[in-house]
């Protein structure tokens, strides 16, 4: 039976392909329809938050930090409610990570402040003695790429029907609208307005000066993103 295939490379290749494709078909396809609905209270990312998410990815924060709280007492004690599938509905890509060299960040917005992040990212060991996290000093100098974040939002809206400019139900019964800029200029202006709110809680004078001159340092976008993780 199988031995015959060895003399017939074409049918051999077909056989191998059938054997390996089968599992994927059974495991992956049925879930696609069901899994992508957001839970109530999950909103699309704002331009600045998404730009911050890109900074998170650019620096591979996910190499050391997970965003997945497993349903164990020890994890919910430490990080908060266990993660739900619908909370990730707008995560492209997912950022669960595979290794916790540092703690989980899925709900870091609940228990860390802008001020804490600002000091921590500059010199982690000064805030958490014994920390092996490197200093992320360049985040305070590099300027955030808002244009690419805006392009990503547009892609989300146009190709994946992410509900920008549409009312999204919240937990308290109200609705919330996450606005999408009409043009690159408007998107940048919206991001800057949001960045000003974040920077109000920051102490670094260079950051304040940069924001005043219309530039958003990467750290501000990153903190906006981390604060949105709740």
């Amino acid at each position, binding site marked *: 039976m199988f*031995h015959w295939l*060895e*003399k017939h*490379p074409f049918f*051999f*290749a077909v056989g*191998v392909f059938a054997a*390996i*494709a*089968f*599992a994927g078909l059974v495991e*992956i396809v049925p*879930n696609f329809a069901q*899994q*992508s609905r957001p839970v109530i209270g999950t909103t699309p990312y704002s331009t600045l938050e998404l730009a911050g998410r890109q900074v998170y*990815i650019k*620096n*591979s924060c996910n*190499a*050391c930090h*997970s965003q*997945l709280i*497993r*349903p*164990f007492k*020890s*994890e919910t004690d*430490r990080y908060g409610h266990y993660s*739900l*599938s619908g909370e*990730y*509905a*707008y*995560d*492209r*890509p*997912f950022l669960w990570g*595979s*290794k*916790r060299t540092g703690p989980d960040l899925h709900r870091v917005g609940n228990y860390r402040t802008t001020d804490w992040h600002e000091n921590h990212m500059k010199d982690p060991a000064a805030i*958490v*003695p*014994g*920390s*092996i*996290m*490197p*200093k992320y000093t*360049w985040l305070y100098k590099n300027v955030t*790429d808002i244009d*690419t974040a*805006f*392009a*990503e939002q*547009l*892609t989300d809206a*146009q190709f*994946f029907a992410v509900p920008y400019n549409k009312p999204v139900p919240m937990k308290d019964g109200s609705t919330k609208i996450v606005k*999408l800029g009409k043009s*690159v200029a408007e998107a940048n202006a919206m991001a800057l307005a949001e960045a000003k709110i974040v920077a109000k809680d920051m102490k670094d004078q260079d950051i304040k000066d940069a924001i005043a001159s219309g530039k958003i340092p990467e750290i501000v976008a990153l903190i906006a993103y981390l604060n949105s993780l709740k």
Partner: protein
Amino acid sequence: MENRPLEYDYTVAKMFMLTTIALGIVGMLIGVILAFELAFPGINTILGSGLAEFTNFSRLRPLHTDSVIFGFTVSGIFATWYYVGQRVLKVSMAESSLLMFLGKLQFWLYVITVAAVVVSLLAGETTSKEYAEFEWPIDIAIVVVWVLFGVNMFGLIGLRREKSLYISVWYYIATFLGIAMLYLFNNMEVPTWLATSAAGETHIGDWFHSVSMYAGTNDALVQWWYGHNAVAFGFTVPIVAMIYYFLPKESGQAIYSYKLSLLSFWGLMFVYLWAGGHHLLYSTVPDWVQTMGSIFSVVLILPSWGSAINMLLTMKGEWQQVAASPLIKFMVLGSTFYMFSTLEGPIQAIKSVNAIAHFTDWIVGHVHDGVLGWVGFMIMAALYHMAPRVFKREIYSKSLMASQFWIQTLGVVLYFTSMWIAGITQGMMWRAHDEFGNLAYSFIDTVTVLHPYYAIRGVGGLLYLTGFLMFAYNIYKTMTAGKRLDSEPANASPMGA
């Protein structure tokens, strides 16, 4: 020209041998740097704080995994295919100028792609999906390289003199098909270049940026279907292809049981793909996928051990060869590590074990006993075996090879033992509660306790890298200063003192 006897042509094999060694050094060197960065964080700014962005752990980590997987291992797969493929099909690359051209084209495109990967990952251009970090332009280049590989493979098979495909060829075909399927589906993404704003602007921001076709849990499901099986079709299947050829050839012993190899092959093909769910235990993917992942991971022991036992039984009655030849030592220890890590993997996939092991260094240890002990040893053994035939010279030094073997073995042992202890320690500390039901340790307690193990791991990695540099030197000296051979050695590779 007309009367010259037909010979196998190893031009393309030689080219890929070179990248195997070069990218192996790069990948392992970065690995050692990363290991020491975790033990001594000051190393993150080793080139000064101005360049810290490019030397810090998180930026280098994808470069380490990708240069070992897509650099060292994939080059090794190509190099051995262009050697083994010709021989077991009994057809020379010299017989087809088209295949020869495509082979060389594949090599140069591969080199260009590797350069693009290095630049983009250092710049932080990544999609964040593990072992699929490349943005779409590089994905397209990789697909082209892979298609060229496939055309060459099936082209050579089409020209063959031997009707039956040898066991190794089955595994190479599976490698080609498996990686092609996985890579394509996992990297489905929409370039942001295509989006239009309400004001009619297009081509906004970076042209190479893209958005994953899948969101959240679905993305995770596809990613770990890929991530797990990229290990299957990158680190298991092609390496089994190598050992099925190189161990019998080097030892002069035909494979112990052809029938067993038939059963293990189809068993592996059918079972492996189901096991990806074990990366997502206790996550938000459906329960039945998780259970399926656990069960099939355990079933997977059978076909894996089928191949490994076949290898060890091939040496039946010939164990003096293991003592006599460092080259055979590499292969026998390699298949032992294969058995070891294919037992360890299923243990980690059991749900209750995974609850402790997941997210810890035990997983890192598991990957490395597989890759250092099995993949690395087997590829180096393959290249050692090929060198005298390809360069028509004796291997430069046997004693150097023997000391390399022991140094690297010690390195691997230090690596996985330290990571076992580190992983289980951390996993247990995370979940420990005191008598009042409060968490017993803060997170940082579970980090500082790992320091000695991280240091030991760094030393283990350094030993392995040292061994690899000895290997590179030995091959270099073989090319340039080995004693010339008049005829091709039949089995055992000739070695100088």
